[in-house]
């Protein structure tokens, strides 16, 4: 290899441009965070701009006293955990089953599911059917529609096809059934793709918003995304919270919840779980979208 060229003007400009892009991408996260840990009085006057002032963490305590927020967190965590588990299990099993040439009508059934990626009945027909299925104010509305995900099935099928078939065959010789083969032989081989799916699925569930918007009227089933959206849009619901928490606590102005502190802190509560798992899943998603780029 030749010795690398010197640091040119191009490099200087490149570093500056990339740094600016990175700052633009990350600054909103940073800005909201410093506002949640600063003096609420200064924050609500717009005086916390580039660094935190009078650091305090009371907002993160207060915000959990907001009626309904803990419940919404339970709903969001619940749908994420349960939804991810069943989606991963179903995608893994189906992806495996569709690699079995001997399945009755294999090609037809595979296409039957895959083709659903390319059409959509539309919002109203979807809503009316969900209503007729009893999915209004039903937690299952978060889980059941996510179980069969064609894109994930394609990912698993492609991945299983790239693993050696000999292991499966020898297990079959020993009299193992399909389910045993899947659990004991195939699952350990395909954990990387299952991890990728788990990440996509978990982020998708956590971020999902419109199913709550359309299907849920019962406060007990509201997700964090949905109540955040309400706090952003309905000044009255935020004012209500402030009145309730202010009356009950009588804290000094620096810790007194404000509209800004409630909005920023709830936003951080929704963002932080993503930030926490992000470093771990980063290595998986590159693999995921590369396999996904190969058509099924």
């Amino acid at each position: 290899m030749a010795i690398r060229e010197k640091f040119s003007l191009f490099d200087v400009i490149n570093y500056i441009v990339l740094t600016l892009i990175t700052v633009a991408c990350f600054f909103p996260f940073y800005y909201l965070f410093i506002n949640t840990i600063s003096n609420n009085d200064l924050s609500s006057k717009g005086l916390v701009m580039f660094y935190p002032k009078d650091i305090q963490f009371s907002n993160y305590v207060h915000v959990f006293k907001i009626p309904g927020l803990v419940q919404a967190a339970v709903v969001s965590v619940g749908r994420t955990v349960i939804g991810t588990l069943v989606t991963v299990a179903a995608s893994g099993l189906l992806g495996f089953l569709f690699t079995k040439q001997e399945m009755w009508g294999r090609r037809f059934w595979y296409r039957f599911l895959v083709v659903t990626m390319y059409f959509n009945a539309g919002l109203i027909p979807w809503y009316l059917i969900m209503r007729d299925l009893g999915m209004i104010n039903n937690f299952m509305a978060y889980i059941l529609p996510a179980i069969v995900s064609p894109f994930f099935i394609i990912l698993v099928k492609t991945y299983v096809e790239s693993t050696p078939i000999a292991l499966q065959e020898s297990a079959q010789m020993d009299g193992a059934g399909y389910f045993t083969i899947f659990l004991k032989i195939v699952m350990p081989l395909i954990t990387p793709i299952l991890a990728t799916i788990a990440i996509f699925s978990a982020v998708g569930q956590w971020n999902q918003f419109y199913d709550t918007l359309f299907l849920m009227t019962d406060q007990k089933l509201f997700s964090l995304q949905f109540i955040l959206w309400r706090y952003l849009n309905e000044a009255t619901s935020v004012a209500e919270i402030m009145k309730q928490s202010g009356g009950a606590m009588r804290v000094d102005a620096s810790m007194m919840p404000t509209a800004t502190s409630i909005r920023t802190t709830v936003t951080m509560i929704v963002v932080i779980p993503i930030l926490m798992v992000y470093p771990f899943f980063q290595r998986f998603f590159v693999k995921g979208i590369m396999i996904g780029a190969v058509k099924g």
Partner: protein
Amino acid sequence: MSASLTEASNAPRKKERFQIKNKYKLFLMAFPFLVLGFIFSYLPLFGWVYAFYDFRPGIPLSKSEFIGFHWFTAMFSNEVQRDEMIRVLRNTFAISSLGILTSVLPVIFAILLTEVRNSKFKRMVQTLTTLPNFISWVLVYSFAFMLFSVDNGFLNNLLMSLGLIDTPTNILASSNNTWLAMTLWGVWKGLGWGAIMYIAAITGIDPELYEAAKVDGASRFHQIWHVTVPGIIPTFFVLLILSIANFINNGMEQYFVFANAMNMANIEVLDLYVYNVGFTGSNFGFATAVSIMKSIVSLFLLFLANGLSKAVRGETII
């Protein structure tokens, strides 16, 4: 008949029976999931019948009047409705076109990033720029609210403290440049993520091509232009074709969260329009008719994109 002969003729039959059993066993294992797929993806299609009835929420379909293609012709039947459809289609086309135009930005970003030699810096840039892809549009809107709101937003506060403006401007509730603003938020969210494919494509380019170019005296820009760019054109083309197939499917979430009374005229894309007509206006029949038209057009676009892909690359996308 000797024992060995019987055994020999029995073996294949036994195997056959075994396979027949397996054939259905595999199907039965998949069956519950096929049912779920049918319920949540195919069953809603039956809801298309609502487009042919004068259906109002609260009154059962059986008591609603069958009106044939009334809702379909209603889309363009009178002046007011026609203008509205044209406005919505214009928003859809404008935002989608801007989206396609800005799809070169991840390419440029990927090229710039791969030109960086410091791997720590490279990894940090990639990590932080990909992050926005993983947050929902509600969160993006929350960021937008905190940064650009008229009431205590970062930008207004900054400009005021610098003495550049006297009164805060309401950027979010403005009808100016809505298309551009929506596109830019799309870029903000998707830039790092969109670049991943291109970075992978660039990594896959044979390093010998660069060595050869260097030997021929090619400068850094020449190397980028003659080696890197041709190396990622195929990837760019595939993604471009896919975006044609999705030209009228902007989705609803982004426009829904950013919409307000001031910018509605410019932000209302087809998907949001269906929501507004159906849920806010309670006109289920008309909204369904618009959905059906949309599905037909996007199916047409999908086949068009597929044909285009076949003609140019010799490979289909579906």
